[in-house]
């Protein structure tokens, strides 16, 4: 296996034992990231000198016999809605084109303390609103398997960076599937931990009751390790759970005896691409041969998730994005003589935000406005409780729930030009966030488009705070597909 396609755990080991140096590894990944950007556009900024400096500091620790951490010298890419002191934090929006964060997000700081080296910030759908990374002020990100297709979104740049070997691992955020869907479309592992497990301090807020940070990796053990480093209480985020984090590495290699896999009939719908259903069925059958029990579960509220999500998420977004008013930071529009402060707000926002963000702010404003609040927002929150209860009932019968992460493999650019059509792609991922559950997508096969292969992912969901168990189940699936090459074809 060539160096870029080893996983983060291997890189960390090689650096710690002196088989290679952090400097050498960082140089190699920086070079791949830079070379790829003309064709893939995964990165908005690449931090060459800062990354090399951080790598040398790791090497100095190794030389001095100090513990450089489990992720010693592992290059990481960070979604551009996570605050970093280095470079800018733009959320791929003109609104924050020049924004420099005075602090670094807790999750990034914890990974840096474990030895990881930030090599750049990745492109995304503006303010994490989208499922294709086409709504990015710095141009669309391309899928490394077929550059005429989208990488998924909103964390498209981070998914591509991990899948194409442009970093050791990357960070994304997931409000309705923004880690799992792009991981599925790009052929890497994407893990969204339980809501409240990873600090959101330094994550630019979109839907505060839905947002969660998680990793994109090339192995399940990398997802477990990076999660372990990030997870836990943070005084700066009062929604982080005050519960001990179960060690996800301890039993990762031990298969769960008698694993019960819930299969909702709603997930293998005829509306999915046939190849998606074939791959998911194949993975389920292999799990069964391994000794797992397939349990039929019923999740009749699956479809209503989209309606629930596209009320709650825009409602929360319209509030969270009210802070962008052109006064203290962000884009400020020019005023003509005599124009009011109110015009300054409205014009700054109209110039700074792209069309999808404006659409969602208006949608959120509408469902929260007088006369509509109860009919839309209030009702969606009640349905939310029902969706959570439906999962609770299902998990009484099974350990994990399996299905596709996306109804189709990567689609062509412009293929979902109607906003509603794009929203409907999120059908298998939004309910996870509505209920606050942990979930993961990992590659299980490919769809064929002529000579092209398009990755397909298996989506596994688990009860809240069963993150370690979910990762163990994912590791069992990963072992079933040993030949699955995660290397993306030559995209340059």
């Amino acid at each position, binding site marked *: 296996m060539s160096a870029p396609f080893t996983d983060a755990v291997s890189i960390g080991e090689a650096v710690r034992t002196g088989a290679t140096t952090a400097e050498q590894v960082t140089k190699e990944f920086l070079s791949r990231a830079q070379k790829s950007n003309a064709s893939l556009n995964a990165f908005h900024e690449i931090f060459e000198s800062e990354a090399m400096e951080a790598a040398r500091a790791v090497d100095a620790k190794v030389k001095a016999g100090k513990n450089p951490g489990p992720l010693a010298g592992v290059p990481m890419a960070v979604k551009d809605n996570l605050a970093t002191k280095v470079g800018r934090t733009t959320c791929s929006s003109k609104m924050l084109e020049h924004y420099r964060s005075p602090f670094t997000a807790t999750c990034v700081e914890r990974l840096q303390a474990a030895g990881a080296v930030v090599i750049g910030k990745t492109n995304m759908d503006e303010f994490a609103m989208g499922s294709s990374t086409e709504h990015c002020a710095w141009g669309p990100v391309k899928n490394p398997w077929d550059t005429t297709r989208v990488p998924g979104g909103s964390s498209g740049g981070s998914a591509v960076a991990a899948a194409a070997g442009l970093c050791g691992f990357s960070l994304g955020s997931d409000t309705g599937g923004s880690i799992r869907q792009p991981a599925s479309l790009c052929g890497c592992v994407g893990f969204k931990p339980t809501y409240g497990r990873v600090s959101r301090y330094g994550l630019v807020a979109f839907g505060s009751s839905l947002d969660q940070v998680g990793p994109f990796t090339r192995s399940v053990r990398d997802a477990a390790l990076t999660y372990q480093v990030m997870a836990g209480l943070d005084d700066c985020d009062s929604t982080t759970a*005050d519960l001990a984090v179960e060690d996800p590495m301890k039993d990762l290699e031990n298969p769960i005896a008698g694993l019960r896999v819930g299969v909702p009939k709603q997930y293998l719908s005829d509306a999915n691409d046939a190849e998606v259903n074939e791959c998911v069925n194949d993975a389920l059958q292999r799990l069964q041969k391994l000794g797992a029990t397939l349990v039929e579960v019923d999740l009749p509220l699956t479809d209503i998730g989209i309606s629930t999500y596209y009320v709650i998420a825009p409602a929360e977004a319209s509030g969270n994005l009210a802070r962008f008013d052109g006064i203290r930071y962000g884009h400020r529009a020019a005023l003509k003589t005599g124009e009011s402060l109110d015009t300054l707000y409205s014009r700054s926002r109209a110039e700074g935000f792209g069309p999808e963000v404006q659409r969602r702010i*208006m949608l959120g*404003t*509408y469902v929260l406005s007088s006369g509509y609040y109860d009919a839309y927002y209030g009702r969606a929150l009640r349905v939310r409780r029902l969706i959570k209860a439906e999962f609770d009932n299902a998990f009484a019968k099974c350990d994990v729930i399996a299905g596709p992460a996306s109804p189709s493999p990567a689609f062509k650019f412009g293929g979902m030009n109607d906003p509603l059509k794009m929203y409907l792609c999120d059908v298998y991922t939004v309910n996870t966030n*509505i209920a606050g559950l942990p979930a993961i997508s990992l590659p299980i096969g490919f769809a064929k488009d002529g000579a092209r292969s398009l990755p397909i992912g298996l989506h596994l969901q688990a009860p*809240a705070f069963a993150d370690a168990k979910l990762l163990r189940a994912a590791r069992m699936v990963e072992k079933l597909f040993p030949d699955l090459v995660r290397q993306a074809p030559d995209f340059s």
Partner: protein
Amino acid sequence: MTEKHTLSIEETAHVAKLARLEIAPAKLEQYRSELANVLGHVAKLKSINVDGIEPLTSPVDSTNRLAADQPGATLSLQELFINAPAVEGRFIAVPKVLAEENS
């Protein structure tokens, strides 16, 4: 399944005003039709019986944690002002808030 949702141009303009978004009149119709489409779809929520169901605002039962009332490290004005569009001395400058008389 999706029902038709009526939303007028005037309502769309009103929502844009509430959201503090200066939308050009030429662009209003597109926003109107896209919003009407999405609202028509989310109207499916009406088909779910929610009688006696309490709203769920957060997936986890979180209690408000209070920090100890002790001053900690804070950011300097200089650090914060690097992002301000206009600064005058110790202040962020904004356009005149009160309208001038006779204007």
